[in-house]
């Protein structure tokens, strides 16, 4: 349903997207996971025909984005990173206008607006000004806006960033319903839990490249191991000993102050014994471990 091949985007000297390729099958939920500045938003903007490609190709539903961007936007529901609601209009008017611009008749747009508002539990806010809504409601409104035309493909850029856990759960529920309805979804996120819960497959991106791709479980197996060791060290010497022990092995040590996590490159459980002054606990590997293994701990600028 979505095919991205050898995609590049440069802004002056910055190579924001540096040769990525991936495919999303019909009905699949696909995630782009990466730190800030990884190139997720740029990729999604190019895919929505909001930003010209430097080179490469994107097809959505068999339609080439560069040649027929307008048609792509006809079959695409887009949730941009910023809600982008129109503060001069009410909730219902926002949706009705969007539906009309998308191609629905004025009466049909209004009908659909009420339907999606009901679906997202916002029907009693339809006459409110958008600036009166809470953050979670604004986000749900943005998602409902993308669903007005019942598009076969929906693109969501960080759908839950900045939401409280309740609102996030609510958004997840709605995404699950969408998924059951057979909608193809491409989403970006930097929440691991979100990616693990919602995505059938995902790519881990950093510095404009895809570092690895696969189902969440596969990625965990490949880069973290089913079980990872959580280590508490009591002294600098103990930590040094641990470092020495793991050097050159298939295990990776990720230090956070006096804490450290040990992941595995080949799925093996890291067995640590014979070092004084450390305490080892085991827990299930997760996407966070994968993420840190692949992208490191450096802070990113926006």
């Amino acid at each position: 349903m979505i095919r991205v091949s050898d995609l590049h985007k440069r802004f002056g000297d910055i190579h924001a997207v540096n040769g990525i390729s991936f495919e999303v099958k019909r009905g699949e939920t696909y995630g782009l996971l990466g730190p800030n500045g990884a190139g997720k938003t740029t990729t999604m903007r190019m895919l929505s025909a909001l930003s010209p490609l430097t080179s490469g190709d994107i097809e959505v539903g068999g339609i080439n984005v560069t040649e027929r961007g307008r048609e792509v936007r006809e079959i695409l529901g887009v949730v941009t990173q910023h809600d982008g609601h129109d503060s001069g209009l009410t909730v219902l008017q926002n949706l009705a206008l969007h539906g009309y611009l998308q191609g629905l008749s004025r009466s049909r747009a209004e009908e659909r607006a009420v339907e999606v508002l009901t679906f997202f539990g916002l029907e009693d806010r339809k006459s409110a000004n958008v600036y009166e809504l809470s953050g979670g409601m604004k986000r749900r409104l943005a998602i409902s806006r993308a669903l007005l035309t019942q598009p076969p493909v929906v693109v969501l850029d960080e759908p839950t960033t900045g939401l409280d856990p309740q609102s996030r759960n609510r958004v997840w529920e709605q995404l699950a319903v969408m998924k059951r309805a057979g909608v193809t979804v491409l989403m970006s996120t930097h929440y691991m839990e979100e990616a693990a819960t919602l995505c059938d497959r995902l790519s881990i991106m950093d510095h404009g490249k895809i570092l690895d791709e696969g189902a969440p479980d596969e990625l965990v197996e490949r880069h973290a191991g089913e079980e990872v060791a959580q280590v508490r060290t009591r002294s600098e010497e103990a930590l040094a000993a641990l470092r020495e022990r793991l050097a050159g092995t298939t295990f990776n040590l990720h230090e956070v102050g006096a804490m450290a996590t040990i992941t595995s490159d080949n799925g093996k459980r890291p067995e640590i014994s014979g070092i004084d002054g450390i305490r080892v606990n085991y827990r299930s590997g997760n996407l966070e471990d994968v993420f840190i293994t692949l992208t490191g701990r450096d802070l990113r600028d926006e």
Partner: protein
Amino acid sequence: MTLTAAENRAGGAGAIRWRSVQGIWLRHWVSYIRYWKITITWVLIEPAVALVAVGAGIGQLVEAVEGADSYAEFVTPGIIMGSAMFHALFETSWNAYHRIDNQIYETQLTTPISVFELTLGDVAWAVTRSLFTTVAVAAFAAALGWIDEWMVIGIIIPAILSGMVFGTMGFFFAATAPYTVFLSLVFTLVATPLYFFSGSFFPISVLPNWVEPIAWAMPLTPGVHMARGFATNTLEITHLWSALYMIGMIAVFWPTAVWLMRRRLIK
């Protein structure tokens, strides 16, 4: 108008999707009438106050000028066109910047609309706003007997042209403003000086000789000149030049505005 590959419109390079333009105009109308109690102060009350103060107040001190029977008659088309300018300019500078800054255009662009259609819808609305204030103030002036009722219809022509001149010009500021305060320049550098020095309040002929051609070249002058031709029923060939000058400005400003907006919105 040619478009970049990124906008890649369906149906050939020249096809305009009128639904897009209509939708944008309708958005403005719906939003505008929600706040009509506020906007009417700017559409009618503020320019009417200026008109009465200048026409009836200062008018008592001034003898009739240039073909007009009274100073009030002279100044009426000037104040009307000034108001038309403010409305059009404000719409596509301040309001358009607000829509850039709050990602409203970004949201609209996720639908099958082009930047060209977006700006066309906005300019159409800017012209509409110019017409609202023109008709409102002209009707008020007609009630005072400062303009012939029938000439109100004639003034609509320069109001549309001038609305397009300033409606397209406003985008220059919206598309290049790095921050909101920058937009003050729309008033301090453009609108206010033009309001006073475009032959609205005194004939350009009273200016020093070397300033005269500059005043004639200013973008509001042809609108005021043409409106006065209608208002005082003194139409002649120079009013046609004014119309052509405005059309020329639109022909330059319009593609520039679209180019600047595309540069700002499509990255």
